[in-house]
């Protein structure tokens, strides 16, 4: 039995990797996408274009603006001197932020009165708007502290001391790149498995397979192995790139990570084979793969937190293996989470994997035309 499975797996590998084109499709795009997406997918803003509308000639105003000037997050693209110029700049997306200092600014400050600073932000992308505002607030806070200290003003009665754990500088790449590991592993494993049965059905070889003494379980294992191993190989490659190229910290135990990876692959390969054995033609397999992959990525917590989703959608994500793997990846990479903490993420993947594989095996023989 063991030998039969090996023979089947070897055949699957040969069929998959012998062809130069399909070898290329399996290996190259994921790696290219890792680099492109890792650099592209970031919530960190740099060089936010802003304009200055300074109606005040005082030194204080200049000092405050120097704070913006010195920040690598901001890039001044215009100085304006009429309020009429503000709207076109923002409308045309030439600037995201206009810093407006009123004519009374220095005088108010000197008299110890609160001096208002107007920040006009393009809210079309509310996320960038929020971040821009946060960056600007940090600069103003910094200015305030220095000013208070220099002028012996009373500090605010309560002061905040904010610290971020696991990612002190809040580099969003640390968050995104482990996510991309999951995303690409999913895409590769689905690509390898979701057509494997459908293609054999279309070419007629699946019948040939079914008339051999191979049992459905054996066919299942033989078909699952290539997706599993290729996924494992490619995920390892991508994780290496994450650690050595993108310098993402690897704080947890590799063993836990690989356990998570194995269970994740199990579930994805299961779903892929299920899609594949449900479909009669490759086209259906492709459509099925698509209909699974797209929601799986969007509802995985990769780009937007699951906690922000409505309750009903949150329940839906419980069926999504990528959701669990995302937590495992980020937990192990960034938090150094131990097995005990991730157990709750591991068993659902195992459950999804076993259920879908069983279903796929059943469908081999019972899905008829």
């Amino acid at each position, binding site marked *: 039995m063991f*030998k039969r499975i090996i023979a089947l797996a070897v055949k699957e590998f*040969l*069929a998959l990797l012998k062809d130069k084109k399909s070898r290329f499709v399996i290996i190259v795009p994921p790696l290219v996408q890792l680099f492109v997406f890792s650099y592209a997918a970031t919530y960190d803003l740099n060089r936010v274009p802003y304009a200055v509308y300074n109606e005040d000639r005082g030194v204080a105003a200049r000092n405050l603006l120097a704070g913006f000037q010195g920040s690598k997050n901001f890039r001044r693209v215009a100085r304006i001197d009429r309020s009429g110029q503000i709207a076109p700049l923002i409308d045309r997306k030439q600037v995201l932020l206009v810093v407006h200092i009123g004519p009374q600014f220095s005088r108010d400050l000197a008299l110890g009165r609160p001096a208002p600073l107007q920040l006009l932000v393009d809210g079309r992308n509310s996320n960038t708007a929020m971040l821009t505002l946060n960056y600007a607030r940090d600069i103003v806070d910094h200015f305030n502290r220095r000013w208070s200290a220099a002028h012996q003003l009373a500090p605010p009665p309560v002061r905040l001391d904010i610290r971020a754990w696991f990612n002190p500088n809040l580099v969003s790449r640390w968050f995104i790149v482990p996510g991309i590991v999951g995303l690409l592993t999913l895409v590769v494993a689905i690509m390898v498995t979701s057509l494997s049965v459908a293609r054999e059905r279309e070419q*007629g*070889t699946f*019948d040939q397979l079914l*008339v051999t*003494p191979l049992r459905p379980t054996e066919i299942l294992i033989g078909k699952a192995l290539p997706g599993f191993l290729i996924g494992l190989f490619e995920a390892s490659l991508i994780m290496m790139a994450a650690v050595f190229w993108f310098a993402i910290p690897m704080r947890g135990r590799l063993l836990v990570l690989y356990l998570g990876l194995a269970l994740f692959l199990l579930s994805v390969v299961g779903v892929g084979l299920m899609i594949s054995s449900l479909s009669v033609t490759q086209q259906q397999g492709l459509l099925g793969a698509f209909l699974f992959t797209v929601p799986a990525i969007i509802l995985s917590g990769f780009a937007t937190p699951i906690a922000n989703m409505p309750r009903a959608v949150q329940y839906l994500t419980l069926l999504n293996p990528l959701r669990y793997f995302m937590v495992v990846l980020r937990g192990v990479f960034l938090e150094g989470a131990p097995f005990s903490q991730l157990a709750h993420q591991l068993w659902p993947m195992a459950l999804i994997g076993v259920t879908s594989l069983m279903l796929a095996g059943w469908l081999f023989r019972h899905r008829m035309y």
Partner: protein
Amino acid sequence: MTRPREPGAVVLEFRDVGKTFHAGKRAVVALRQVAFTLRPGGVTGLIGPDGAGKTTVMRLAAGLLAADAGQITVLGLDVARDALAVQAAIGYMPQRFGLYEDLTVQENLDLYADLQGVSHGERAQRYRELMHMTGLAPFTTRLAARLSGGMKQKLGLACTLVRAPRLLLLDEPTVGVDPVSRRELWRIIDRLVEQEGMSVLLSTAYLDEAERCGQVVLLHQGDVLQQGAPGALSERMAGRSYQVTAAGIKPRALQQRLAAAPGAIDAVIHGDGVRWVTDQPAPEGVLPPDARVTAAAPRFEDSFIALLQTLDGGRRIEGPMAGVAAAGVKAAPAAPVIEVRRAQRRFGDFYAVRDVSFDVAQGEVFGLLGANGAGKSTTFRMLCGLLPASAGSLRVAGVDLRHAAAAARARIGYMSQKFSLYGNLTVRQNLKFFSSAYNLTGKPREARIAWALEEFDLAAQAEAVSLDLPLGYKQRLALACALMHGPGILFLDEPTSGVDPLARREFWRRINRLAESGVTVMVTTHFMEEAEYCDRLAIMAAGEILALGAPAEIKARAASAANPTPSMEEAFIALIEAQPVEAA
């Protein structure tokens, strides 16, 4: 309709045309210096085995491919320069008829009338003619997908005829179509030639059709071998064709004996004897004592086989095949190995197979004949345990498939339609995989692979990727894979479709040897002459068995005063025509 003046008396001319295809780094020469001419009127047959370049010729003539060398002239127009004008003047039916299956008959016609620029005024008249000619009038609102193969082919023809073309190109119009439809198609073609003065170029792999053509062009591996009237070609075989009958010996055994005789060119089972083409009609010790040898009229097929054999260098395969089915031979031949009782298979409310019952005995070659969609493949899939029956019982090797399909599977070999192999694996890799799948390991496995390479003449191709093999080799490899575990029962689903006549003969010789070794062979085919190789056969239509028995018995049932010795094809047509006509 005014026609441009005839530019000379040639409708189609190929002048030293060459065509090479490139697949990656490999270059495949499809045509080499092909030259022939077509005169107006009449049917010209483009005859050749699979891969000879027939379709390439058709596509070149239609301006769908550009020739690498030489010149093609259609109706006085240079195809290379004026493809659009050529396409406006000819009709072309590609191999798969070019129908939109999700449109109705009428909608397909409308589309092609729009594309051909037939004015709305002319249409009503033309449609009426075409519908009358093809007999599709009752089905105009039916989706093309729901037509039978023969009706699809007629609709495809009607679509190419919406504007009467002067030259009609038909690419293998009769492939996969039952004999009744084939005959009707020929009737239509003959009418077009006679009444509308059309010139027709028709490619086919059926050699008997060649004899219906006014002129044939023989194509082989990209070369034109011969061109001329079919009668003239078969004349050369005059005096070398014989009909041999012998009372005391099975036709199959007789055929093997005759094929092996020195000087023999061809031996096929025909009627109750063997048709023998040979240079030496009376060799020593070959003929059984009571054999009767009578001279027969030469056929086109004889000359074709003779020609191909001189080109390929025929190989001889004799004697029982070694290494197969030692298991079953001793068993009592009386017990049926396959028993089918009132088997039924429904798909929704459609009966693919309805109340089918038959038995197959040990060592028998049993054929299932019928047109596409007759229910052959469904019956087969049920017997192999690939498809559960909706009702009835099926027993294979004494095992009820309902309960122990897995146990039956170890004892059967299955070769599917299209020779399903793993295309991007090599021959050896395919063999390795199937031998492992059938539980062979270590030394026995190596030995078995060596046996397969040797027995099926695949040793030279062992490391070739199976997708690139010629069809005949694929067929041998598929058979080898199905025999890896020495099964007692062999299922062959259309094992010879698309394969050239030489490879077909060779294949049947192997099957005969298998049967001699005690293997039970069950085979489906739509080549009627192949039915003669079977010990017994069942003719299926619309999911039911119309006739069951030995070939001679079936032919006898169709015998009439007008035709006392019908061929299998004639018998088939007679049986089908006796059925009630399909309702609209």
